[in-house]
């Protein structure tokens, strides 16, 4: 059954004010186009969860979409701080809930696996445990030692970008696979965006590469260049220059941030217009040369 819809439709049907939203992707495959569509549709009071909020959540918070942030590393990777999030947290305007990467990902794993909580070994660093009441301790019934536990994270909506999917949402990812699978299984509703929509037979030619099965997906959207300024392995490179540029824009103050949003989010209709606006120079700078994997033989049985 085809679940193909436009991005506009996928967001308006599945993302509601007050939802907990998880846009997946550890540096790789961050669904910027979907976040920008949420900004354009004016969603409010969202709880934004991501291990690394990245520029996307900095922009969504700047646009007034969020009430709360759940995170484990609030930096601009390789550059410095996420200035908007940081100032919102420092001023107390934005609610926050903080984890380490492992405890954040463990929450998703528990959500994805249908567990009531999930244990982790102790780390000795107890200050975060004291700051966030979601960290608890239980006694291991086998050894008698205490372990740390966290509850499941079950976002209302998970958005996952992939290299290719068929129209019913069977999705294949390669490169850094971060927490995409866990987000898809943990979330109540799943929006899948894909660089390419391929025939079901392409997916079935390499089933081991399918991380997300279509039957847990609610909407499938064809969005080439969805991840820019993040990247899609084998399709286009990370726009490191823009990550540096955002540091300057967000340092320059609210006017500069508003000007950026006006031009690049509110000022374009969709991702295709955004892609064309980037222009041939940027697109060619981010082009990657192909490097193919050796084919594998599944055998005829």
């Amino acid at each position, binding site marked *: 059954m085809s679940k193909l819809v436009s991005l506009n439709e996928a967001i308006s049907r599945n993302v509601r004010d007050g939802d907990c939203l998880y846009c997946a992707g550890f540096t790789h495959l961050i669904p910027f186009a979907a976040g920008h569509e949420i900004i354009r549709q004016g969603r409010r009071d969202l709880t934004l969860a991501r291990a690394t909020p990245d520029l996307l959540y900095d922009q969504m918070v700047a646009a007034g979409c969020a009430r709360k942030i759940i995170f484990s590393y609030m930096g601009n990777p390789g550059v410095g701080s996420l200035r908007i999030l940081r100032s919102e947290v420092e001023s107390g305007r934005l609610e926050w809930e903080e984890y380490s990467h492992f405890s954040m990902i463990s929450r998703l794993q528990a959500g994805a696996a249908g567990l009531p909580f999930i244990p982790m070994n102790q780390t000795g*660093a107890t200050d975060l445990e004291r700051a966030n009441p979601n960290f608890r301790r239980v006694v291991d019934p086998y050894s008698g030692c205490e372990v740390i536990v966290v509850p499941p994270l079950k976002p209302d909506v998970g958005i996952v970008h992939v290299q290719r999917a068929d129209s019913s949402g069977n999705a294949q990812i390669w490169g850094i696979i971060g927490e995409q699978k*866990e987000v898809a299984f943990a979330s109540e509703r799943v929006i899948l965006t894909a660089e390419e929509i391929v025939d079901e037979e392409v997916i079935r030619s390499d089933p081991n590469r399918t991380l997300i099965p279509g039957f847990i997906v609610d909407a499938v959207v064809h969005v080439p260049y969805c991840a820019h300024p993040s*990247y899609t392995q084998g399709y286009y490179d990370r726009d490191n220059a823009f990550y540096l540029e955002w540091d300057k824009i967000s340092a320059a103050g609210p006017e500069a941030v508003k000007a950026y949003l006006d031009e690049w989010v509110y000022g374009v209709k969709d991702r295709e217009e955004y892609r064309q606006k980037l222009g041939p120079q940027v697109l060619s700078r981010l082009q990657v040369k192909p490097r193919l994997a050796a084919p594998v033989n599944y055998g005829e049985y």
Partner: protein
Amino acid sequence: MPTYTSSELMTINSARLLRDGDSVFVGVGLPNLACNLARRTHAPNLLMIYEAGVIGARPARLPLSIGDPTLVTGAASVCSMYDIFTLYLQRGNVDVGFLGGAQIDRYGNINATVIGSYDHPSVRLPGSGGSQEIAAWANRCYIMTPHQKRRFPEKVDFITSAGFLDGKGGRTAACVRGGGPQAVVTDLGILSPNETGELVLTALHPGATLEQAIANTGWQLKIAEPLRLTEPPSAEELRILRTELDPAGIYLHR
């Protein structure tokens, strides 16, 4: 004698701490340079593991972010974040972790979370990321940081990652498997834990003085006997760093 920057000095001295065959949890920036330098010199069998879930990376270019696509192309394996933190780190398959932070205290505890109070921060820092678990579970941890008094307080404002907590027994009491910080490499010298877990000065770099090290540490810095003098960076180490690893000087600040 060749001249060099503080970043080059710290990177080269950190690279020398790595052993051939070590599996290393690599961070971006200077730790990435140190590991790649070690792999091109005395440790050709270094296994580089990246937090993003990449094992046996052979980056062809300098990665700006921890999840750069160059880490994946040509790597031995890629796995999920849950797998990297459980199968690799928690299970005890990582020999060395690199850490950094805004503050490091007398017992090697690190703060990368907040300056001031947690609920009403005066400066909000990025937070743990992977460092809480790296510090706990890697067999050995190394820290690279410029030697400045504000970075070396007696006690950190917030323990993001555990060093020896209140002293050497602290880790055992908390059932923490890893060996903790083994060396803090600064631009003046190297600090290492003594038998109580307190960081003491064990080596000075050429040209640095005891007085500088003492004046730039926020506690009464003890000096190890005998105090070692590090070998100056060699021409070959500097050549690899400058021409092969960071030709644009992005991290080496040349």
